């Protein structure tokens, strides 16, 4: 399979958040700041790499009827490992995100990739897919976390941008702000996609027109001669 197409699909066209609207729980729960969003995305990316790798390794070995419990066991194992590693080497971030790390198990974006992609594709394709989907997820969490931190507290990555007098805007700190910000981001993504499509359409139309001009010139040339 074309790796570039796999990546573009996982990162943008079928982005877990922007296109599929999966994984809303961690999205709404942890994106109160850009840093929290980034590390939650990174943890999810690691789990995705692990689960996609193992699922694509055991594809064909695990019978169809028991594939879901098998996938969930694999995902849960990787989530626990990532949680332990974070607790050991990123203790402070673990204290903040600790509550949400175990919930990665039930992030349906991960089971979705195991079921829809890794169980049907080669190991290398599955790793590219995991990387693309994980990075797309991280990008979405980082973006939403940044917007909420900026509007809610006037900060970005913990640095004050508008001075200390910026009043906390409660709505953006609490979950409703996540919904509202996500709505505007989705609108923006749709706008970009429409623009891309229009540009592609214009290019296509231009190609057809040129072809027709060519043809009519040729026929005129034939008439003149």
């Amino acid at each position, binding site marked *: 399979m074309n790796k570039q197409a796999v990546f573009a699909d996982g990162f943008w066209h079928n982005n877990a958040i922007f296109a599929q609207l999966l994984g809303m729980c961690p999205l709404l729960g*942890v994106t*109160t*700041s850009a840093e*929290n969003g980034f590390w939650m995305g990174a943890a999810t990316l690691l789990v995705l790499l692990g689960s996609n790798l*193992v699922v694509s390794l*055991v594809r064909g*070995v*695990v*019978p169809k*009827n*028991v594939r879901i*419990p*098998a996938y969930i*066991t*694999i995902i*849960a*194992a*990787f989530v*626990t*490992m990532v949680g*332990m*590693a974070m*607790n*050991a*080497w990123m*203790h*402070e971030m673990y*204290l*903040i995100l600790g*509550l949400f790390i175990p919930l990665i198990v039930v992030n349906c974006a991960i089971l979705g990739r195991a079921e829809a992609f890794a169980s049907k594709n080669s190991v290398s394709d599955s790793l590219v897919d995991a990387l693309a989907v994980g990075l797309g997820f991280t990008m979405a969490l980082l973006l939403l976390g940044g917007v909420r931190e900026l509007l*809610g*507290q006037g900060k970005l990555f913990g640095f004050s941008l508008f001075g200390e007098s910026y*009043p*906390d805007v*409660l709505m953006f*700190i*609490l979950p409703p702000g996540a919904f509202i910000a996500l709505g505007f981001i989705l609108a923006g993504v749709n706008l970009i996609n429409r623009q891309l499509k229009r540009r592609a359409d214009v290019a296509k139309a231009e190609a057809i027109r040129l072809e027709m001009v060519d043809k009519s010139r040729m026929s005129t040339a034939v008439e003149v001669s």
Partner: protein
Amino acid sequence: MKLNREQMQMILALFIVAAISAILLSLTDMLTREPIAQAQRQALHSALLQVLPEHDNEVQDDLLEVDGRAIYPARLHGRLTGLAWEVIAPDGYSGSIRILVGIHPDGHVQAIRVTEHKETPGLGDGIVHNKSWLDSFHERGLSGVHWAVKKDGGDFDQFTGATITPRAVVKAVKGALVFYQSQQIKILDQINSKTAVVAPSAAGGGK
């Protein structure tokens, strides 16, 4: 009951997946157990440094137990300069809040730090980041201070949009002071009868 080939295959597949997961998990546990213990010790160490006055003893090895509480004494040249122990506020906005309270031997607060909480990020977690709020506990004792948030007519600020969290912390810190007042003689007796564990780097001390 006899299992057919297909059923055997299912059982075998799940067994293998579970076994691999178990091996991976125990390997990770072996790798991370020591760093996790160290990280927790380090976190406690830096919290103790922040809540206790100047000292030259190895506070974490010097601890004593009174009424089931682990109390860390701070000593400078063998003289007691402060005490710290952890209190739990069970009535946070979402779950318990663990607070390390450091006090002077005379019963005034030196400083407090939150060591564990599940409060709303950006709202209730001001109890961790809000420096001036944390500083407002400095030198407060039981007498002459109304231990409640301003909304309840007390002396301590609440946060915009978060009253329950600071209310729980204020109540828990007051509880710590009340505990100290009632147990002061017992605690000081225990501390004075014990030899200080001096930090390897520091000279002198030791009673």
